[in-house]
């Protein structure tokens, strides 16, 4: 008897405990959830958006979520499978293509057509970045693209006056500055950020119909060969091809790299590691030809959103006027909104003047954006292409073999289901 009483007691305790732990049934309250990408500190501005939103929709509650880039897609996709996907999402780079191509995002084209005044405020070249198969899926949240930082001290030492004007000069100047620990040129490599180097040499990744690889050309082989040799010689810092974010930025912050091809956010990051960075010591300019790869954040609506019209209004608040301005101030970025950027530049001129030259580059040469292709399998193609390129650049394979292998792999990715 004693046994069963004990068992009974334990079961009762468990049930009781379970009862304590189950959260109360969710209210049948209207809710829109917003998932941002690694900006948890941005709260004041966000709350102002919510206040503004609630003026028009007092009965809809906004839920704020934020995840770091490394966890973002895991979280989002689990939520999608479970049917509770966040309604409004902030995505970096090309990840949105995966969801758009599978029908997971709301087509914003009709909304943009209806609100023409709002749409006019965006830079058309930037806005174009989120078109897939003729439909517009996202609008710019905050923008960034690559530029060329250069170490003015190292330039002076090597007797170089102005930043390079073409590809050959990049190599020559880099060679001049390479000595011992120091290297002349370095680039970031994730999210296709290095592509401007290829674009400026006329290399295309894919055919215009986006169905086949188009980079296996003699010119491309020559280019990769040149880059590979430069890397072997230390002219191009190896970290360009093996590092991700911390190493390249740290290397530039250590003052041992002459030219650093990165996107604008890198500036504040390496500046925080390097007290010697000022307007006199570090310059910001465009890559020759004005080529750059954007790495902007866009804001989009998940297909499962129950109140897409309300979500659209929220997005409008966040991306124009005062809302956009707050975002720029709160995250130290420029937005895709032309009037807001004017105000932001004034703001930064007052509060962070050293960043203004960097930020100015973000709005110039918008016709020379490259490295973003509206292909559904963007991530897979990157995976097929980059490791082979890396092999060639680090001398593990010849440029010819690497590009051929990459071509096979990329074509297979594009062909298979």
């Amino acid at each position, binding site marked *: 008897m004693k046994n069963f009483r004990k068992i009974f007691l334990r079961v009762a305790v468990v049930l009781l405990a379970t009862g304590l732990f189950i959260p109360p049934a969710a209210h049948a309250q209207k809710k829109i959830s917003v998932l941002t990408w690694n900006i948890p500190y941005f709260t004041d501005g966000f709350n102002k958006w919510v206040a503004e939103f609630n003026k028009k929709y007092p009965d809809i509650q906004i839920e704020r979520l934020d995840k770091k880039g490394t966890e973002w897609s895991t979280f989002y996709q689990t939520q*999608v499978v479970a049917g509770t996907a966040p309604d409004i999402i902030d995505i970096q780079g090309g990840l949105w293509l995966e969801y758009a191509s*599978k029908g997971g995002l709301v087509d914003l084209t009709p909304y943009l057509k209806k609100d023409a005044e709002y749409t006019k405020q965006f830079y058309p070249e930037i806005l174009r970045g989120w078109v897939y198969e003729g439909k517009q899926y996202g609008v710019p949240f905050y923008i960034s693209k690559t530029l060329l930082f250069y170490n003015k001290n190292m330039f002076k030492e090597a007797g170089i006056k102005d930043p390079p004007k073409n590809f050959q000069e990049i190599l020559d100047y880099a060679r001049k500055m390479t000595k011992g620990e120091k290297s002349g040129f370095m680039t970031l490599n994730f999210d296709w950020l290095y592509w401007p180097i290829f674009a400026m040499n006329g290399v295309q990744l894919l055919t215009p119909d986006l169905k086949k690889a188009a980079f296996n050309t003699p010119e491309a082989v020559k280019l990769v060969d040149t880059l590979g040799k430069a890397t072997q010689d230390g002219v191009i810092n*190896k970290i360009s091809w093996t590092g991700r974010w911390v190493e390249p930025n740290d290397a530039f912050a250590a003052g041992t790299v002459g030219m650093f091809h990165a996107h604008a956010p890198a500036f504040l990051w390496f500046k925080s590691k390097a007290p010697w960075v000022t307007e006199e010591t570090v310059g910001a300019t465009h890559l020759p030809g004005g080529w750059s790869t954007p790495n902007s954040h866009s804001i989009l609506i998940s297909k499962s959103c129950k109140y897409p019209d309300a979500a659209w209004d929220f997005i409008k608040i966040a991306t124009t006027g005062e809302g956009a301005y707050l975002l720029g101030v709160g995250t130290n970025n420029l937005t895709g909104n032309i009037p807001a950027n004017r105000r932001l530049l004034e703001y930064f001129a007052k509060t962070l003047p050293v960043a203004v030259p960097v930020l100015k580059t973000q709005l110039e040469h918008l016709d020379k954006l490259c490295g973003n292709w509206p292909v559904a399998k963007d991530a897979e193609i990157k995976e097929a292409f980059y490791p082979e390129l*890396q092999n060639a650049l680090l001398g593990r394979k010849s440029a010819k073999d690497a590009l051929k292998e990459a071509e096979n792999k990329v074509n297979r990715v594009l062909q298979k*289901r």
Partner: protein
Amino acid sequence: MRNRHAFSEMSPMAFLNPDFFKRNRTRQLFLIWFFLTPSLVIFTLYRIIPLFWNGVLSFQFWSPYQESQFAGFAHYEEMFFYDDVFWKVLWNTILLMASAPIGIALALLIAVLVNTPIRGRNVYRTIVFMSYPVMTVAVGIIWQWLYNEKVGLINYVLISLGILQKGIPFLGNFTLALPCVILASIWQVIGFYMIILLGGLQNIDPSLYEVAAVDGANAWNRFWKITLPLLKPLIFLCFVIGIINSFTAFDLIFVMTQGGPGHATDLLITRIYNVAFKLSKFDYAAAMTVVNFLFFLGLTLLANKLAGGEAGAVEMER
């Protein structure tokens, strides 16, 4: 009948009743299954069902937004015949598992040493174990610094000792990266092995050794003939822990190398995760999960055989 409850109330004559054993046996079986149930429920919910989910998914084309379609063996075909990366990560995983016995042997050595009646053994034991409660993410960050080409401690020491002229970029080197990650992984888990083996060592009746010593066996014989056989179940356990630790290496790799350079430190588990969540190919990842499962199952069965079967259980006859 009342006999089912109070054991002590029964008369010795009850044993003579053949029905007694049957009822008792049923009751015993019921109790055994009852004891197993809570754990079984948890594993069914959180391991077995997910495995079946993956299994079913591996034969379909599916994405979170679209209807599923039957795919037959398409994913497996892709994996085995066209996917170089799969074979690379499989090989890396094999290498990682091959290092588990080394870690266990080292841990056994340390456990034996810590088990001797020396002063401060508790201190040693605590120090060796301290690496385990550290979050794997932190372990990754620590070792990333240790291996750093310019300012890492390892390069510093090697250069100071004159073995190297310039620092080696350990984690950026295609051949060295994986052994370096494996070393970090062993560092983290060796305390765990040691604790388990130490527990086992301390549970061995010292009289066994005394008897053997009296019989003329030396220390080596005592270790080989008494200690090791008695530790077999725990050594097998350590090996299984090694398998689980290879899954934990997931965090290490994400922090230290992200699988690079060029998949040199990518394991099956990290590859599955990337394919699922970065490339959004859950169906393909599911197929790889099945393969991963079968691989480790085979490995465990092999280890089980080597440990003498039945998870190396030892019957103590006294």
